[in-house]
């Protein structure tokens, strides 16, 4: 059971992610954010919930759909928007763009534009912790499409063989760009396949923050008692197109959800109802929303006003 304080903190993170993504949708048409954006509307509860369960110091790796993970770990929007605008003050000095966000000081070591690529990196981080006899948690977030890449199976096999402390988090939206799971999978159940490995397996509705937290805590307890890796299968709904700021239900490859379905798939609406149960008032939520809006407005202004890297920066940061 979450405390009221925890509930409001988590709500703040959900709102921060949603409003940041909405801000991108609002301003992207100005063509000043010259980077392909893979927005996380619908995905928010997964990184917020999983990271809530990982004590600091923690290490995380992600994908190109990484805004929610970055914001959940850092709550920073200054360097985030500066990066999207290609400015010197961006988290990668304008060399990362949307698809390569990282924040080593907050434990986010790498994200990648190539599917499954950071999974072995996360296993390497877990190996490093084992090497130093640390129990520091490592989580790697990847889409269901990553399970079609060899790197996923190689990584899972190695992590299980060496009993590494790593949490594999499958963010399953059932789509690989536009291809459905049935077009891609030669197996029926993700969880059943993973159970063939020496790996703890959990699953939950990834649209439900409370369910994500409960499943993560359960799985981590099992991982601790068995000293084996964990695999968390979380379904969620991608509200927007694969890359870009628009809905694409008219494209014909999937059905638009009706209003009732939308409400069930929206992590913010789901968690708002839970907040009521925790005794959080509407005005407490509104204060958070207003503060988040102000934070994002300020970050957008800073990003727009910020300087581009100078020409010398082109050649910097290649070598140590």
């Amino acid at each position: 059971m979450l405390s009221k304080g925890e509930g409001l903190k988590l709500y703040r993170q959900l709102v921060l992610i949603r409003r940041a993504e909405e801000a991108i949708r609002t301003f992207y048409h100005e063509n000043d954010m010259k980077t392909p954006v893979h927005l996380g509307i619908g995905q928010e509860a997964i990184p917020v919930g999983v990271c809530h369960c990982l004590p600091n110091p923690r290490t995380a790796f992600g994908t190109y759909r990484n805004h929610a993970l970055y914001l959940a770990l850092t709550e920073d929007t200054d360097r985030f928007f500066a990066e999207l605008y290609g400015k010197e003050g961006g988290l990668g000095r304008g060399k990362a763009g949307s698809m390569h966000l990282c924040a080593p000081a907050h434990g986010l070591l790498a994200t990648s534009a190539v599917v499954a690529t950071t999974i072995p990196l996360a296993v390497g981080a877990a190996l490093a912790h084992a090497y130093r006899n640390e129990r520091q948690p490592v989580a790697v977030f990847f889409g269901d499409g990553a399970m079609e890449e060899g790197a996923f199976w190689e990584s899972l096999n190695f992590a299980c063989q060496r009993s590494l402390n790593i949490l594999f988090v499958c963010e399953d939206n059932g789509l690989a760009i536009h291809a459905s799971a049935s077009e891609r999978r030669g197996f029926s159940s993700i969880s059943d396949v993973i159970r063939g490995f020496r790996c703890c397996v959990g699953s939950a509705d990834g649209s439900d923050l409370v369910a994500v937290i409960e499943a993560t805590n359960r799985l981590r307890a099992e991982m601790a008692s068995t000293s084996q890796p964990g695999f968390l299968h979380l379904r969620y709904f991608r509200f927007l197109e694969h890359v870009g700021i628009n809905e694409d239900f008219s494209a014909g490859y999937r059905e638009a959800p009706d209003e009732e379905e939308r409400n069930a798939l929206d992590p913010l609406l789901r968690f708002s109802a839970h907040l009521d149960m925790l005794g959080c008032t509407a005005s407490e939520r509104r204060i958070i929303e207003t503060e988040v809006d102000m934070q994002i407005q300020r970050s957008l202004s800073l990003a727009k006003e910020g300087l581009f890297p100078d020409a010398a920066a082109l050649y910097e940061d290649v070598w140590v």
Partner: protein
Amino acid sequence: MNTTMTYRDALALAAAKEMDADPRVFVFGLDVPDHKRIFGSTKGLVEKFGSSRCFGTPLSEDAMTGVAIGAALSGLRPVHVHIRADFLLLGMNQIANVMSSLRYMSGGALRLPLVIRAVIGRGWGQGAQHSKSLHGLFGHFPGIKVGLPTSPQDAYSMLRAAIRDDNPVILLEHRWLYDIEGRVEEEYVPPLPGPAVVRAGSDATVACTSWMTIEAMKAAEVLERHSINIEVIDMRTVAPLDEGIVASSIAKTGHCLIADYDWLYAGFSAELAARLAHRCFGALRKPIERIGFAPVPCPTTRPLENLFYPSAVQIIRAVERLLDLDSIDLSQELFYSYEERFKGPF
């Protein structure tokens, strides 16, 4: 300490020294701790440092390259070993998409201090999938240092320097070099070194990679008996490339042959030739000559293999072309002296 040892022993000693000095250093890769020990080059490590710091892996070159990167990001200093460089192509996503660019994409926030060691070159009819060098390919990607040690001293000091380097380094070791013996100064650990003149000469500059240095030294011995003195340069580190020593040599000789242990097309020899042609345009008295692999996949049968690989004979013929000399009678010369020591199966 200054001792005579083989190239393989120099590699094992270098790893042991660095593992002794720094608990963050570990050595891993398929069959690294087995009874053969990567042709002896990881001998003694598992006994001395235990299986947590010297261990084998599944057959998963892609993920294991990523594991090395992830461990490096997390403060360790991995040495990832491959018994053949061709297997590194399975790890190419990690090498080209991550290892080369992660530091840059982080705006300089991340460091990737890791070493990949891989064996290249001829053995015993290795064929098309056990013979590639790939240094030109790896060097193509900004952010990766690529070295090819030739002498036992360089095997020793370049491996130690690579482990101490905070950048990712790929070291490529020719199979036949493993048996070569030489003096090794154990305290000598400079940063990853640039090209070195290994034989001074005044008539033509021969810039070599890896095994071609051995072939060039053999060619130099033959040519010297015909009053031709070639300057032999071992390139050693091909990325990042500092061709200054070669340019200075050309200023003296006016002639240049590049003997690369790779295909010519779009390879390291093309890059070096382009730079030297630009830099030494006024000093060159003839166009730069290049020799390398024949432009075919590597065959296995010995007669065709001998034609595929560049050799001392080809170096002599190229020098003759550069200097407008008549063909030297080579029928009484003994070539491939190291090959005669090498037997199979691998």
